[in-house]
C-alpha cells in the first residue's frame, strides 16, 4: 500500500520537499547538540526542561485525541465519523512518534535510551510513559493499517483489529494520564503538584487534538477532495467546545485554590505566568493572549450561526490549538520551574539550535502524517 504515497501532484511533492528541507535543518541542529552537549540549548541548571519536553507534553495530547473519533464510531456507532477514524488514528501515530523523538532529543545520553528497558523501574513514571506511548503507537498503526488494507481489497477487516481498536480507547486516556503523572508527583513544583493536572491534560488534549482533526479535515477537503462531511465536522466542533470549556473551568479552579488559599508557593508560578513575579514577566502577554483566544474560540464553537460558517470554524479551530499550545506547550513546563527550589526566578529563552531541532521533529511528524494520509486517501478514494 505504501507505494500509493509515491504518486502525487506537484503540490504534494513540493510539500514533501519543504518538509525534507526542514528535517535537514533539524538534523544539522541535532548534530551540533550531539557534538557539544545540551548546553547549546537555552536550558540550564534551573530550567532543566524546555521546548522539547513542552512539545512532548502537547503532542501526547494530540495523540490521545484520536479517541474522540474512534470512541463515537466504534462504541456508539456514529457513522458520521467513518471517514475521520483513519485520519485520527494516523494523526495519533505521527504525534506519538514525535513525542518519542522529542524525548530522545532531550536526553543527555541518547545512546543509553535502552537502559529504560534494561533496568525497568516501575516506581518511575518515565518507565510507564515509554510503555504506554510505544503501545499506543503500535495499536494505532497496526489496527489502522490492517483496516485500510482490508478496505483496499474490499474484504471485511480481520476480527482481531476490533480487539486492538477497543483496547486503544482506554489506552488513549492512559497515555495522557501517565504524562500528567510525570509532572504531578514531584514535590515542591507547585504548578504541577495538583490532582487536576491529569483531568486538565485530558480536557486540553481533547480540545486541541479535536480542533487539529477539524483543521486536517478542511485541508484534506481542499487539497485532495476528500470530504469527511459537514456532519462529522459539526459533531467534532461540539466535542471540541465542551472539552475546551472543561479545560478553562479546570484552569479556573487552579486559580481559585492558589489565590484564595493565599499560600505563596501555590501562587508563585501563576503570578509569574499571568502577572509577573519580582519584575520578571516574559510570558505574561502570551498567557493572556492564550486565555482570551481560547475562550473566544470556545465561544465561537458554542454559537450556532458562527460555527456553521467554515471561515469561523477554521478561525476558531486555529485559535483553540494556538491557545492550548501556548498554555501547555510553553507555560506549563517553563512555569513549573519558577521559582526554583532555591527561590530564584530565572528566565528561559530557547536557542536557534533548539528551535531548529524542534522544527525538524515537527517536520518528521508531518512527513509521516502526510505519507500515511496519502495512502489512506488513495485507498478510500479508489485511486
Amino acid at each position, binding site marked *: 500500500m505504501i507505494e500509493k504515497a509515491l504518486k502525487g501532484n506537484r503540490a504534494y511533492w513540493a510539500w514533501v520537499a519543504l518538509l525534507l528541507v526542514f528535517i535537514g535543518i533539524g538534523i544539522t541542529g541535532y548534530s551540533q547538540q550531539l557534538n557539544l552537549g545540551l*548546553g547549546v540549548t537555552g536550558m540550564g541548571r534551573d530550567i*532543566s526542561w524546555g521546548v522539547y519536553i513542552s512539545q512532548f507534553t502537547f503532542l501526547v495530547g494530540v495523540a490521545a485525541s484520536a479517541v474522540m473519533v474512534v470512541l463515537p464510531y466504534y462504541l456508539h456507532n456514529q457513522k458520521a465519523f467513518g471517514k475521520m477514524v483513519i485520519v485520527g488514528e494516523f494523526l495519533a501515530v505521527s504525534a506519538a512518534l514525535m513525542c518519542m523523538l522529542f524525548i530522545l532529543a532531550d536526553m*543527555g545520553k541518547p545512546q*543509553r535510551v535502552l537502559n529504560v528497558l534494561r533496568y525497568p523501574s516501575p516506581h518511575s513514571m*518515565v518507565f510507564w510513559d515509554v510503555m504506554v506511548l510505544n503501545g499506543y503507537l503500535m495499536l494505532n498503526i497496526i489496527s489502522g493499517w490492517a483496516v485500510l488494507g482490508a478496505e483496499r481489497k474490499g474484504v471485511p477487516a480481520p476480527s482481531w483489529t476490533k480487539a486492538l481498536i477497543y483496547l486503544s480507547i482506554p489506552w488513549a486516556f492512559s497515555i495522557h494520564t501517565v504524562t500528567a503523572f510525570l509532572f504531578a508527583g514531584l514535590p515542591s513544583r507547585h504548578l504541577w503538584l495538583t490532582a487536576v493536572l491529569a483531568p486538565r491534560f485530558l480536557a486540553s488534549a481533547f480540545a486541541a487534538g479535536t480542533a487539529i482533526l477539524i483543521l486536517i479535515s478542511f485541508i484534506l477537503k481542499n487539497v485532495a477532495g476528500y470530504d469527511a462531511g459537514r456532519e462529522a465536522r459539526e459533531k467534532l466542533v461540539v466535542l471540541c467546545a465542551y472539552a475546551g470549556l472543561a479545560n478553562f473551568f479546570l484552569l479556573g479552579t487552579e486559580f481559585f485554590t492558589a489565590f484564595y488559599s493565599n499560600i505563596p508557593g501555590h501562587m508563585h508560578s501563576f503570578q509569574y505566568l499571568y502577572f509577573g513575579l519580582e519584575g520578571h514577566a516574559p510570558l505574561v502577554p502570551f498567557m493572556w493572549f492564550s486565555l482570551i483566544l481560547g475562550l473566544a474560540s470556545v465561544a465561537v464553537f458554542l454559537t450556532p450561526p458562527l460555527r456553521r460558517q467554515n471561515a469561523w470554524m477554521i478561525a476558531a479551530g486555529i485559535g483553540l490549538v494556538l491557545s492550548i499550545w501556548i498554555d501547555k506547550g510553553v507555560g506549563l513546563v517553563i512555569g513549573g520551574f519558577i521559582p526554583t527550589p*532555591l527561590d530564584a526566578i530565572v528566565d528561559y529563552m530557547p536557542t536557534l539550535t533548539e528551535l531548529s531541532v524542534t522544527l525538524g521533529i515537527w517536520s518528521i511528524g508531518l512527513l509521516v502524517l502526510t505519507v500515511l494520509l496519502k495512502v489512506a486517501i488513495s485507498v478510500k478514494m479508489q485511486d
Partner: protein
Amino acid sequence: MLELSSVAHGDAEMNQQRREFLKKAGLGALAGLGAAAGLFPALALEKTDLSIFPEKPMPGKTRWGMLIDTRKCSEGCTQCIAACHHTHNVPDFGNSKNQVKWIWKSPYEKAFPTASQQFQGDDVKSRKVLTLCNHCTEPPCTRACPTEATFKRWDGIVSMDYHRCIGCRFCMAACPYGSRSFNWQDPRPGIRELSDTYPTRERGVVEKCNFCSERLVDGQLPACVDTCPEKALTFGDLNDPKSEIRTMLHANETMQRKPELGTLPSVFYII
C-alpha cells in the same frame, strides 16, 4: 600405570584450581551484583570503613548525616566548597546556566523559603548557609529515575551511577532542593586542577554530592568536614544514639530544609 597416576594427579590439581577460580569468580560476580543493586550491603564493593567512628554501626542500619552549625560558618570562607569541588573534579565555567555544584552557600531565606522569616535579627537574615544534597531518607529523585542510575545505598547515601544515567533530568525536576547538576557541556575543560581522587564525568549525565563515599571507604571524613577551619560541620551515623552528631542534635535546636515535604533530609542545621 605411572602415566595414568600423573594424569589423575594433574586432573585433581586442575579441578582444585577450577574450583578456586569458580569460587572467586562467583564471589566477584555476587559482589558486583550486590554493589550495583545495593541489595547485599555486606558484599558491596565500596565497603565503608567505619573504624574512625566511635561506635561501629551495624551494616544496613547506618544512616550517614551531617550537622551544619551556621553560627560557626564564617562569612566569605569557601574552603569547604573549594576542597569538595577540587576533590571531585567539579568543573567551573563561571556561568550560572551550565554551572555544576556539589556544595555552595545560599542566603538563609533562600535555603529555608518555608521557614519563619519575620522579625529576625540582621545576623540571621544576612547569614549564608551551606547547601548540598540532603541524602533524604525518602528521596524523590531516586523515585523519579527511570534506570536506577540514582539510588539510595544501604548507608543512607543517595548515590549516582554515571555510566547508567541517560540524562533525562527527571531527578533534577524531582529534587526539591536544587541539589542536582547536569553536565550541559564537557566538564573536563572546566576543571582547573585535575585531582586523581575521583573520576571525572562526561557531558550528558547528572551529578551531585555523594557524602564523599569514596573517602568513607578509606576511613576518612568527607572533604568539606575535614577542611572546615571552624569545625562547623559534624558528620556521623544518625542511627547511632551515642554518635557525636546525635548528641549534638539532642542538645541543640536544629532545622532541616523543607521538612513539610516528608523527604526526611539527613543534613541538619543549627541557625
